[in-house]
């Protein structure tokens, strides 16, 4: 029965997968791999391979510093969104409002800056404040009123868009140039050729990782994402901690808005949806489970770099932005699907 000669093609393939699976299992048991995380190592390889591929496909044009800086510009603001949504997804929730809320932050604060003449420092505070307000709003509805996060964030996405349009009278807002008065905010991402933004982003990511892994906030967020009822019955105020995850998200979205304008200066009301998908893709690709309870900040960081590089690469290859939309869509599905498969296998 088990003689190899009589195996059907299907059985052969199945055997091959089984052997491959066992080999991967072995690699996963390696202490170094275990410590860093198998998933993250694979992602790093993907990142490097992708970069190499783009360099080859563009006949070396992609290798220049300019492209990298441009990709980084994209990675900063997207990174903040992605870090933020990681906290929400860790609770088992979702936030589809991050992109438009980021735009709302940038528009409201930018309009205050250009039309009402508030100083740059205050504008930044306003942006963060608007982000926090949306986070609080989403979090309160989800945690205390038990409105599904999917619905809440869909609704607040529209609220953010509408609010920004009303506030700016449907005008796009241009933040000051680097040389103009208050232009110092642009050095948040770059001074000369030094990518300051990268250091700030990584520093914030480290703080996020510490919060998620070393503090009570992170412990409770991850635990309630895994089994909310068990945590509640342990006498933990789960509603509070669930809301806090959305507030953290809002805060990071508010910061992300500043990095968006520091890179591109101009914001238009009514947009921002596509960044939802990209930020969620970065996060889920990094190993954060849509089912909640499992999250990785370092994974999110690498995931975001992959998305940003992809977007830059697609443009460099001469494709339109539409292809970017298709590809991120596929990535989200693939990442979530692999998470589903992984969980099914565990059960």
């Amino acid at each position: 029965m088990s003689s190899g000669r009589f195996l059907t093609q299907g059985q052969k393939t199945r055997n091959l997968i089984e052997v491959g699976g066992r080999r991967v299992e072995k690699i996963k048991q390696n202490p170094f791999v275990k410590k860093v995380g198998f998933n993250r190592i694979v992602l790093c390889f993907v990142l490097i391979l992708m970069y190499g591929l783009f360099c080859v496909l563009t006949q070396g044009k992609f290798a220049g510093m300019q492209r990298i800086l441009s990709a980084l510009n994209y990675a900063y603001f997207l990174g903040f969104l992605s870090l933020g949504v990681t906290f929400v997804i860790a609770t088992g929730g979702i936030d589809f409002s991050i992109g438009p809320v980021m735009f709302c932050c940038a528009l409201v604060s930018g309009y205050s800056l250009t039309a009402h003449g508030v100083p740059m420092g205050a504008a930044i505070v306003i942006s963060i404040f608007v982000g926090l307000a949306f986070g609080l709003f989403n979090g309160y509805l989800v945690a205390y009123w038990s409105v599904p996060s999917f619905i809440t964030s869909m609704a607040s996405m529209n609220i953010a868009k509408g609010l920004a349009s009303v506030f700016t009278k449907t005008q796009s807002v241009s933040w000051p140039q680097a040389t103009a008065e208050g232009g110092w905010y642009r050095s948040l991402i770059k001074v000369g050729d030094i990518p300051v933004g990268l250091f700030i982003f990584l520093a914030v990511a480290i703080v996020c990782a510490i919060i998620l892994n070393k503090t009570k906030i992170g412990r409770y967020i991850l635990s309630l994402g895994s089994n909310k009822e068990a945590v509640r019955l342990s006498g933990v105020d789960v509603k509070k901690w669930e809301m806090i995850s959305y507030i953290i998200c809002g805060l990071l979205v508010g910061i992300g808005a500043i990095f968006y304008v520091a890179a591109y200066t101009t914001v238009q009301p009514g947009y921002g949806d596509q960044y939802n998908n990209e930020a969620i893709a970065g996060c889920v690709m990094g190993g954060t489970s849509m089912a909640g309870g499992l999250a990785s900040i370092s994974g999110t960081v690498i995931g975001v770099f992959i998305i940003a590089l992809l977007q830059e690469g697609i443009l460099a290859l001469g494709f339109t932005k539409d292809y970017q939309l298709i590809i991120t869509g596929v990535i989200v599905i693939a990442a979530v699907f692999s998470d589903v498969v992984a969980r099914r296998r565990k059960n």
Partner: protein
Amino acid sequence: MGEVILTMKDIDKSFPGVHALDHVDLEVRKGEVLALMGENGAGKSTLMKVLTGIYKKDSGTITYEGKEVEFSNTREAQDAGIVIVHQELNMLSHLTVAQNIFIGREFKKGIRIDDKKMNEEAKKLFDRMNIDIDPREMMGRLTVGKQQMCEIAKAISHDAKVIIFDEPSAALTETEIQELFKIIRDLKEKGIGIVYISHRMDEIKVITDRVTVMRDGSYVGTLITKDSTKDDIINMMVGRVIYEDPKTESTVPKDAPVVLKVEHLNAGKMVQDVSFELHKGEILGFSGLMGAGRTETARALFGADPMDSGDIYVNGKKVTIKSPQDAVKCGIGYLSEDRKRYGIVVQKSVAENTTMATLEQYMKGIFIDKKKEKEVAEKYVESLATKTPDVDQLVVNLSGGNQQKVVIAKWLTRDCDILIFDEPTRGIDVGAKNEIYKLMNSLAAEGKAIIMISSEMTEILRMSDRIVVMCEGKKTGELDISEATQENIMNMATREIE
């Protein structure tokens, strides 16, 4: 004794790191009930999953009706006549009984589903089984016991020749178990081979013909039920005799202070005007049938569900409990009947679960002091004899009994004076059960007050100092252990129904 219908020989199955089945044999004959026993993790379920094609065996042979077979999924096994009645019910509560029974193979009239014919067929099935269920009733409206009957009806409707019952009685009341036994005897007479998986020794004695025992993934042996004693079987399962006699007298002094007093507690339909007192150092047993409102009482008392009215006094002081947080502040801990859903966070480690209720004690500034957390967890792993490679192990990888110990540790770190154990040994094997009992006794001896909800009469009689009996949401009696017997408890537990 009938002829052999199913033989599993030398079945071997390994998972990464675990040798789940080590050359196991099993033989089922026509018209007999074979008990499959073993502690949790002994490999009973794995063996059944290999049989029905959920897992692929590594080696060994399965012979069914004289032919060697290998099913690649449950559907194939079903079509061949081997059916499992699962412990967890796989029913759709918003469909009718008949729709559930014939799901996936509905009778059709053109493109329409022929509900009338399905109802008729279901009725015929129930008549054959001699039970009274309306096929048109919504599944969700039936009691758990009736739902189980439907599951069995579904199995029979497949024209099964071998039926596997996986702990069928776990959720049934005494009367329902009797009904189930009647059905099983009936099936037996029709020449169907039955495999009966259960932890309950009394049932095994009553209903089965032979007992096959497994331990740690290997086959230990097979006994003829009527020629063997309880102790014989248990010895084969664990290698030692452990059953103890019931408690006859309470050791709690009559004047022990009242630590918890509940007066006129009301919460929905399931908790009506419940009052009781709990003394220091006492184990107060809550007995009753499934659905008597015991768990609901505990949950309302703990603030897990809202209470409508009633007064709660802790150490003589009136307290308001609106949430589990309030209850925990009052020194009450609750160990749920459903560990997986309400007790543990499976994706978290033993250490993280242990400190879940007391995290603020292990903070160093804003950071969690993981070293201290680990030390505490290790302390409890040692004192409760929890079997785990280390405290970083994810709880999902522990057996039921050890998971329960982690939950107990969680409440011990909190230093709760009042502990509510809701079905503390459900789904736990005999050996670990005994350890949990010992633990509860020593906790009581230390002066903690314990409420123990249990559906197992032997457990109630063995552990309790006093017994509260409930029926349909009302307290129907209270007994001192010295006056309690199975009979008078059962009387009280069915008082409202009769």
